[in-house]
């Protein structure tokens, strides 16, 4: 029998671990940071994983939305980032929170209904900078830090995409 071994670098929350998987028949053999983890894993349905590990039955779900993977298990939610050695791009994942400059990003598609600060204006952390509206809700976008508005990429009435950078504070 031939074993195909794959090693993944997995980051959940703060921790990054090395997961080694070996297909063994219908199932898997698995090592976590080098030490064997005796578990029985099956996929009953897409997005659903059933794991038995010394008696405990764990139903694991993978929520994917807005391009982010969240692993839900035992009532807890873990934002997961998997680095497959065979795809290297993935190093550059979420460098959202830079040091000097902080971006204000549209969290969903919608429309800018008000701009509350001009470029160059001094703002406190948490002070509203823009208001965008979707699904009949108006939502204030606040300054992520104390500083001044260094960039303003949209004006009132503009339609924006989720993930679009609307303004920057430095």
């Amino acid at each position: 029998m031939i074993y195909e071994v794959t090693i993944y670098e997995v980051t959940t929350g703060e921790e990054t671990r090395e997961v080694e998987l070996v297909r063994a028949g219908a199932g898997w053999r698995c090592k976590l940071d080098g030490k064997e983890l005796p578990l029985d894993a099956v996929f009953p349905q897409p997005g659903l994983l059933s794991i038995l590990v010394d008696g405990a039955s764990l139903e694991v779900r993978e929520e994917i939305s807005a391009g982010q993977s969240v692993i839900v298990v035992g009532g807890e939610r873990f934002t997961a980032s998997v680095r497959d050695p065979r795809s290297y791009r993935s190093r550059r994942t979420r460098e959202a929170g830079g040091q000097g400059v902080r971006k204000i990003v549209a969290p969903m598609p919608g429309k800018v209904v008000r701009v509350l600060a001009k470029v160059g204006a001094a703002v406190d952390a948490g002070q509203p900078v823009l208001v965008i509206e979707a699904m009949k809700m108006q939502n204030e976008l606040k300054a992520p830090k104390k500083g001044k508005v260094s960039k303003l990429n949209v004006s009132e009435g503009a339609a924006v995409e989720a993930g679009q950078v609307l303004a920057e504070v430095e």
Partner: protein
Amino acid sequence: MFKKVLIANRGEIAVRVIRACRELSIASVAVFSDVDRAALHVTQADEAYPIGPAAARESYLNVSRILEAARRSGADAIHPGYGFLSENADFARACSEAGIKFIGPPASAMELMGSKTRARQAMQAAGVPMVPGSAKGLSLPETEVLAATIAYPVMIKAAAGGGGKGMRLVRAAAELRSAFETAQSEALRAFNSQEVYLEKFIDCPRHIEIQVLGDEHGNMVYLGERECSVQRRHQKVIEEAPSAVVDEDLRRRMGEVAVQAARSAGYTNAGTVEFLVDQKFNFYFLEMNTRLQVEHPVTELVTGLDLVHLQLRIASGEKLPLRQADVVLRGHALECRIYAEDPENNFFPSPGKITRLLRPSGPGVREDSGVYEGWTVPLDYDPLLSKLIVYAPDRPAAVARMRRALDEYFVAGIKTNLALFRRILEHPDFAAARIDTGFLDRLPASSRPPQGPAGLSEIAAVSAALFAASGAPLANGRPARRREDHGNGKTSAWQRAARREGTERQ
């Protein structure tokens, strides 16, 4: 009974009414906007007609298109659901002029209750207890004067409003001007009227409402109360029946006041009288909603009645099949409103495609849903996806059952507020029914790190790798592909959005 009923609505409530029609052997007619061709209410109805573009004001608020569909289909009645045209007296009148029965109260009662200021006057005349404040729309200067007399904190409210739109709490004079202006602009946008009025702010009130039901022969009953104190920005999030703090005596007193209020407005069919209840259990009239409520199922579960069946029977001229003495509350019911929004990100709406949907079932679990796996939730309407309702013999059992049901619920592809409900139901104050309309705003955000057994994060890590290895799409750590998916998924929606003047009221 009616032969054919048109449902002038969409989403879960349209499906709810279609089901009731089917159960009463009434043909059902759906209407749909361009983005709703494949919506559940369209596929479930017996007939369906297009009524215009995505923007609600051009479709679900478009009276002439809806009446045209009614005539074309030969519907003899229209059920408006909630939101959209449900509290629009002109629509009700247009229906009767077109010879189509509007399933709801008379237009006159809708107009009276539809204007908060006129409603206050009428209710005051009828001797219904009221919160101190202005009974009519005010200018900014008037507001400043009155606010000073009744003393801060005060509330500014849209006269035509509902559901928290155009509503602002003002704790000090300094905040008054900006709050007043925001309220006006929201009111204008939401209700096409910028009229606002002022009310004394009751600290830590409970929101408790009475369901009333009247036929067109002068009979009216109250069906007990619902407590809706768990709110975010004045939007109800969890509702329950009965209220843990309402005893037989208070229920009777509130119920009789509610019936009296409804009678004084010449009310028929189903309606809800909302009250604020302060810490001494004094209750004050808030408003009357002249339609079926989102949260009507909790009343159905504890009374054993079907409110939509009764609405249809009453509107078709039947007498109320029950007297007040026949109304008996049994057990406890809870409802969670499941929204397409991200509780970990300031509750921003999260439209998009539902890639996986697993629903709870089993003992005491009811789901009223308007979506299905594979459906793309449009960004044009209210983000309510579904209502999860549970029944159990008592409140603790109902809370435990709701937690169980929430654990079974699984939505992928879009964000939902499911995780929020778990946090609420785990909270000792909720378990003890120590809730008021400020409870949810005080609830700490869930940004806390996972608490579970240490092993859990190891399992999560291994699982993430297994999902990746099994070829199940793992978005993160694959930025290139992610960007694509993402773009394709939404571009058209953005383009539509760009062509529209923002979004509409539902």
